[in-house]
């Protein structure tokens, strides 16, 4: 008798084997030994996930109930594979060139990367696939129960707990091998290899059961055929409309089902594999369907009335006591179920994480693509959570729906649900005029109709939609009856729903597309999708020849400069053991080159350029956008540079000005030192010369002696005065003086100044206004007096008028005291007026004996006192104006 424990052990061993296969395949792929992983046979076998447990077990049940109609489910994909090869090939090419990750990604990419479309397709896919996953869990549970029923010793665990264990195991396997790496092209070598093995197992199992049934139970081919003829199943009762509808539906589902898209497009390694799959896949389906009718007929004949025909594949061997065969059959069904769930959950998790979780996460965190390391981690986590979520959803659906007949019927409803993608998909790859709005409208209308006519009624009469609505429409609107829209009755409900939903889907899609215009991104994407063969010439992963390497060199020279580019290529060629400048374009070299170029033109541009030349990739809109971004960045950078350079030149100008000033100052210092030297040496020359004369010369008259010693005396005095002035100026310039503020009348200050000039002022006639002068002021009166003395003495020295006069005008204007000293001489020439306040700026003969520091000292003093001194032109003679703020001067009147 069949032992449940043995079955469990066998199942576990089988699962362990699958783990091993997947693991080995991953390891091989990691080491680059992908040759046998990439065989067209593996690809074809992976397509067999089309045959789920529903096909493995259900086809027999289908045949037992509806006769040969089950064949439509096989004919559809076969016709699609043969008849629509051109469409399939185009889809695969687009998927590869655009790095498409799912059917939602394809549709959203085509229509300008529309997030809403992607989300909608994802939700539809989840809705359409969840019942299907539930179906797989149910089939495993049922088959397990069938075994358990035969084992009296076993205490059967609840069906739901079996389903839970299976679901958990599947989720674990899928997480383990489905999210190993985040490859851009989303290929999963381990998973594909495992499902290929499972494909072989399920085929062998079904064929073994079939052979057993025909030759073991039926007693040979001819007798079996006779039984079939006798059975109502064998009659060729074609219901034209329904059959055509089913064939079309299954063909559409073959292209649109997320799991089929995954293996057909995403996991495709080489477009040429399609050529093998074109004949091998229909052949596989044919073998799968070969023994369905005999098993169904035998089951109906041999098994007791009321046996579940869906389990004939299992119960027939069990009934005959063939435990081993039954176990093989169980493993076959198990394989069908698991492979479907694994691939479906991978496909769905890709969609859910890429189109729902990640956008939300990015929006919530606001991170953008800046934190790339983080995002990678999050994507992984999102995938894993999504996988568990999808499988869990299937389990919950299974529990809620309670299994049974209702679930079995959901298969075709799922098909027609995902078939809603077909208009947008086909239109997208063949019609450039298709627009996002069209696709969205079509999908929404089609899905709504599908939900109303098929999905909701599919739960069973009265479960979701009340019976009276089914019979007389919502709100009494008869024409809206879910199974007879617009009052058209008498059509099979499935064909009815599929027909109407797809019809309105297509009509809305085309109409809205025709009414609107595609956006620029849609236009670009449309061109890339519809004309994919022009954009991607090489079908395989052909390596570029030396001609392309030369192109690469030319391009690199343009970007990097000849010397650097040639050095790079030479180095690589030497590393490869080649002479000359043209290394083979190995992936490593291309990567290195890309990196090198990226340093100059940005990563996206570099990728696009290298990709264009090696023909390995097509420039996608994303690439172009990235290039545009980079260009913008470079432009911004260059404008920043421009701003910087302007700033630099501004700084340079400032520095130059500062330098000029410093040079000027240095020249002034030299000139000052030179002047001091001159001023000191000149009197010293006289002193030395005459003192030597007095010492050495004999016979000097006393008059001469007196004269010469007077000269020595005068020059010594001059020298002393000069030194005093220099010290005074130095103290003033360094700001080391302390102002000695006292209060006094301006008139007495001027009196004092005049008398201090000694006899010099006697030759001047000084005109004053004593009334104006009689104001009190608080200032450093000694210093101000020094200025006045200087000005009066200057007038006395330099005024060249016949009868020299000096007028002293005192005035207040605003808060300022103004004292003007105006003589009646010829004055100072215009070009000299600015110079006279500089040190040693003596004009004319220096007989006056000054050192040329007087006015410079005056300027410094006035600055310290908070006032000014300046030359006042246009007064008829030399005129100086002294101003002093009265805040400090404090008027007494």
């Amino acid at each position, binding site marked *: 008798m069949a032992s449940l424990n043995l079955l469990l052990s066998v199942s576990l061993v089988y699962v362990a084997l699958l783990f091993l296969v997947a693991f080995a395949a991953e390891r091989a792929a990691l080491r680059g030994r992908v040759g046998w992983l990439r065989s067209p046979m593996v690809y074809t076998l992976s397509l067999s996930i089309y045959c789920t447990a529903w096909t493995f077990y259900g086809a027999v049940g289908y045949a037992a109930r509806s006769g040969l109609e089950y064949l439509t489910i096989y004919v559809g994909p076969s016709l699609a594979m043969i008849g629509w090869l051109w469409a399939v090939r185009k889809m695969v090419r687009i998927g590869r060139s655009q790095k498409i990750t799912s059917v939602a990604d394809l549709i959203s990419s085509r229509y300008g990367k529309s997030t809403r479309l992607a989300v909608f397709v994802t939700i539809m896919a989840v809705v359409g696939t969840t019942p299907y996953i539930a179906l797989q869990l149910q089939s495993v549970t049922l088959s397990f129960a069938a075994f358990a029923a035969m084992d009296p010793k076993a205490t059967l665990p609840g069906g739901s707990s079996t389903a839970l264990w299976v679901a958990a195991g599947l989720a674990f396997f899928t997480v383990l091998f489905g999210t190993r790496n985040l490859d851009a092209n989303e290929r999963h070598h381990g998973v594909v290899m495992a499902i290929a093995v499972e494909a072989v197992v399920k085929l062998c199992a079904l064929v073994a059961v079939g052979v057993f049934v025909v030759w073991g139970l039926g007693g040979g081919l001819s007798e079996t055929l006779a039984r079939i003829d006798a059975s109502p199943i064998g009659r060729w009762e074609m219901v034209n409309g329904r059959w055509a509808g089913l064939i079309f539906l299954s063909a559409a589902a073959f292209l649109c089902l997320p799991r089929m898209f995954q293996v057909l497009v995403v996991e495709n390694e080489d477009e040429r594999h399609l050529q093998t799959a074109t004949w091998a896949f229909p052949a596989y389906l044919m073998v799968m369907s070969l023994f369905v009718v005999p098993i169904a007929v035998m089951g109906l004949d041999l098994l007791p009335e009321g046996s579940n025909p869906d389990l004939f594949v299992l119960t027939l061997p069990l009934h005959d006591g063939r435990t081993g065969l039954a176990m093989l059959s169980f493993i076959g069904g198990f394989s069908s179920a698991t492979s479907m769930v694994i691939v479906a959950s991978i496909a769905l998790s890709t969609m859910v994480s890429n189109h729902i979780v990640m956008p939300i996460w990015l929006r919530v965190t606001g991170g953008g693509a800046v934190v790339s390391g983080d995002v990678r981690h999050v994507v992984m986590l999102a995938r894993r959570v999504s996988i568990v979520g999808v499988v869990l959803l299937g389990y919950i659906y299974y529990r809620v729906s309670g299994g049974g007949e209702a679930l079995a019927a959901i298969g075709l409803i799922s098909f027609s649900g995902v078939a809603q993608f077909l208009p947008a998909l086909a239109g997208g790859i063949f019609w450039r005029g298709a627009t996002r709005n069209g696709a969205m409208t079509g999908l929404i209308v089609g899905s709504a109709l599908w939900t109303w006519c098929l999905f909701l009624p599919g739960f069973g009469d009265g479960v979701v939609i009340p019976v009276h609505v089914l019979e007389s429409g919502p709100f009494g609107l008869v024409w809206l009856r879910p199974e007879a829209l617009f009052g058209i009755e008498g059509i099979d409900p499935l064909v009815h729903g599929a027909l109407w939903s797809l019809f309105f889907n297509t009509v809305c899609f085309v109409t809205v597309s025709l009414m609107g215009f595609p956006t620029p991104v849609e236009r670009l994407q449309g061109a890339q999708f519809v004309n994919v063969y022009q954009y991607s010439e090489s079908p395989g992963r052909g390596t570029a020849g030396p001609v392309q390497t030369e192109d690469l060199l030319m391009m690199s020279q343009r970007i990097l400069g000849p010397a650097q580019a040639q050095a790079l290529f030479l180095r690589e060629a030497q590393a490869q053991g080649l002479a000359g400048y043209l290394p083979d374009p190995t992936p490593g070299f291309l990567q290195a080159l890309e990196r090198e170029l990226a340093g100059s033109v940005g990563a996206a541009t570099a990728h696009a350029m290298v990709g264009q030349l090696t023909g390995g990739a097509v420039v996608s809109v994303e690439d172009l956008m990235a290039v545009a971004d980079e260009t913008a960045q470079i432009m911004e950078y260059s404008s920043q540079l421009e701003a910087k350079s302007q700033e630099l030149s501004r700084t340079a100008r400032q520095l130059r000005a500062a330098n000029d000033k410093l040079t000027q100052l240095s020249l002034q210092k030299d000139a000052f030192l030179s002047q001091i030297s001159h001023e000191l040496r000149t009197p010293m*020359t*006289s002193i030395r010369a*005459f003192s030597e004369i007095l010492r050495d*010369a004999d016979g000097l008259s006393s008059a001469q002696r007196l004269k010469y010693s007077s000269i020595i005396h005068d020059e010594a005095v001059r020298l002393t005065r000069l030194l005093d002035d220099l010290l005074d100026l130095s103290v003033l310039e360094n700001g080391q003086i302390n102002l000695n503020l006292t209060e006094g009348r301006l008139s007495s200050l001027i009196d004092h100044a005049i008398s201090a000039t000694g006899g010099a002022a006697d030759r001047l006639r000084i005109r004053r206004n004593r009334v104006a002068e009689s104001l009190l002021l608080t200032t450093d009166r000694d210093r101000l007096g020094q200025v006045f003395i200087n000005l009066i003495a200057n007038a006395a020295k330099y005024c060249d008028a016949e009868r020299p006069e000096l007028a002293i005008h005192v005035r207040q204007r605003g808060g300022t005291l103004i004292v003007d000293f105006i003589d009646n001489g010829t004055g100072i020439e215009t070009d000299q007026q600015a110079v006279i306040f500089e040190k040693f700026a003596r004009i004319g003969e220096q007989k006056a004996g000054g050192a040329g520091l007087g006015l410079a000292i005056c300027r410094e003093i006035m600055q310290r006192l908070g006032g000014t001194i300046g030359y006042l032109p246009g007064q008829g003679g030399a005129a100086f104006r002294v101003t002093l703020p009265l805040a400090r001067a404090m008027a007494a009147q």
Partner: protein
Amino acid sequence: MSKNVLVIEDEPNIIEAIGFILSRDGWRVATHSNGEDAVEAVRSRMPDLVILDVMLPGRSGYDILRDLRGAEATAGLPVLMLTARGQNRDREMAEAAGASRFMTKPFSNSEVLAAVNQLIGA
């Protein structure tokens, strides 16, 4: 034989001192205290020796010397330059302009005498 010297200098005390020293040594001393027409003064007097100050009113001693050296008649005339600026640069400029001898003020009387006598080869 009397030696003719032209002293071009603007400081009266220094003129007096040099005049006293040289005349006691037997020179006939002529003086000129303006830079502007100093070259003409040299040409008209054609002295045996010129004592030339650098800082003169109107014109620099270097310019005057350059003119003298440029003219045929005065190209070889011994010129003793005096300057109150004692920097190396001044000495270099004097040599470049063609001074026969360069002395910095203040000078010692005996040095001046020795220099002028050496310059006329006496």
